């Protein structure tokens, strides 16, 4: 089957990150990005529970007071800091986080994001998703391109309840990299073995093709 693994999606997301950036990684797929950060670059990972500058997920020692927002034990890098939730969300809401990488259920062509509530299960939780979607300077959604039965997750309008309207800047899926532009969605990269028509067939709104359309470098 065509398309990137979750790990390769995370790797492609990591390519968007540069030294000095403050980055928040959402629960689930985005968490994997921490394993693919450019080596040697000082990128500051922010966790909603009040850490700036955490490092790898720690598989060994579990300290209940040293976890990321998904509850996973993490390590600390030199220059890390702790703060309370009011300060953490002042940082997020106030535009001091450069990049939020969020999971997605649906993204609309104008960049609306739905990622917190599954009506068919009657369940969902907000957590920090709305604050991150509104507050981060750049929002990258990392998700599989389609849901079950090839149902497109990139929609003309989201059917699911929104996390925030018009908040997404970049969509990175197992099939493609798509920028959300004022004039619509721009397909800039396709996964190896996939072409634009294949991506379009699995995307509800029309994609414009970048003049620089290319295969993802992984």
């Amino acid at each position, binding site marked *: 089957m065509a398309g990137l693994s979750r790990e390769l999606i995370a790797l492609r997301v990591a390519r968007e990150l540069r030294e000095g950036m403050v980055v928040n990684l959402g629960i689930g797929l985005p968490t994997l990005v921490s394993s693919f950060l450019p080596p040697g670059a000082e990128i500051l990972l922010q966790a909603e529970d009040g850490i700036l500058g955490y490092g790898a997920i720690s598989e060994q020692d579990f300290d209940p007071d040293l976890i990321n927002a998904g509850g996973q034990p993490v390590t600390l890098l030199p220059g890390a800091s702790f703060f309370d939730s009011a300060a953490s969300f002042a940082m997020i809401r106030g535009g001091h986080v450069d990049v939020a990488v969020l999971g997605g259920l649906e993204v609309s062509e104008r960049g609306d994001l739905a990622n917190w509530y599954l009506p068919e299960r009657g369940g*969902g939780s907000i957590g920090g998703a709305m604050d991150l979607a509104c507050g981060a300077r750049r929002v990258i959604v990392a998700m599989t391109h389609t849901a079950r039965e090839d149902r497109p997750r990139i929609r003309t309008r989201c059917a699911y309840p929104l996390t925030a309207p018009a908040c997404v800047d970049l969509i990175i899926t197992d099939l493609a990299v798509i920028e959300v532009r004022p004039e619509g969605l721009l397909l800039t990269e396709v996964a190896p073995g996939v072409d634009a028509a294949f991506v379009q067939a699995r995307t509800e709104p029309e994609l414009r093709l970048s003049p620089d359309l290319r295969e993802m470098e992984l």
Partner: protein
Amino acid sequence: MIDKTFASPDDALHDVADGATIMFGGFVSAGTPSNLILALQRRGTRDITGIANNIGLGDLLDVLCEKRQLAKFIATFAVRASGARKSLFEEQYARGEVALELVPQGTFVERIRAAGAGLGGVLTRVGLGTMVEEGKRTINIDGADYLLELPLRADFAFIKAYRADRMGNLAYRMAGRNFNPAMATAADVVIAEVEQIVEPGGIDPESVGTPGVYVDRVVRCDPVPVRWYG
């Protein structure tokens, strides 16, 4: 001499009555007042309105569902979209036995801070254009809309810190801060579970996370072992 120490969690909860609104500090496993939660379960207090970031995610709060002590919960994370496992809270919520108000996490803590800081409310864009805006006032400033979010207070706050002195000064440890400092400012009675009690001065004045003025009762407990919530 100011002395806010109590001998046991059960003593510290002596006046928590049915129908109380209670805030619980903690973020998943970090900074969670587990001994106070277990004492509340033992006490059997009913019709509780609980306020916490999360329930049923490595936080022990789910034990309050065993005997249906919760009438309502205000949280940011309580029901999972994925159905891998179900907490007791999720089961009771699905059956309509407990009410749930979901709040974005930053709005949640800002509402608590507003209550503690004597503000009448705060304006935020978070939640605009979503289900969160339902029933709320919108205020327009220079052409931009904001939601008016109101203060969130409680009768009691159960919080967790690492170290305390008898005057109620608290020091936190790592990500154990989270909602504890804000909740300490926003309840009529604030009860802190700590791992150590030291003499006044034993906490460096530079390292006090919650000044004693906010804390009514302090109780030393061994931490309840928790597992990685993965």
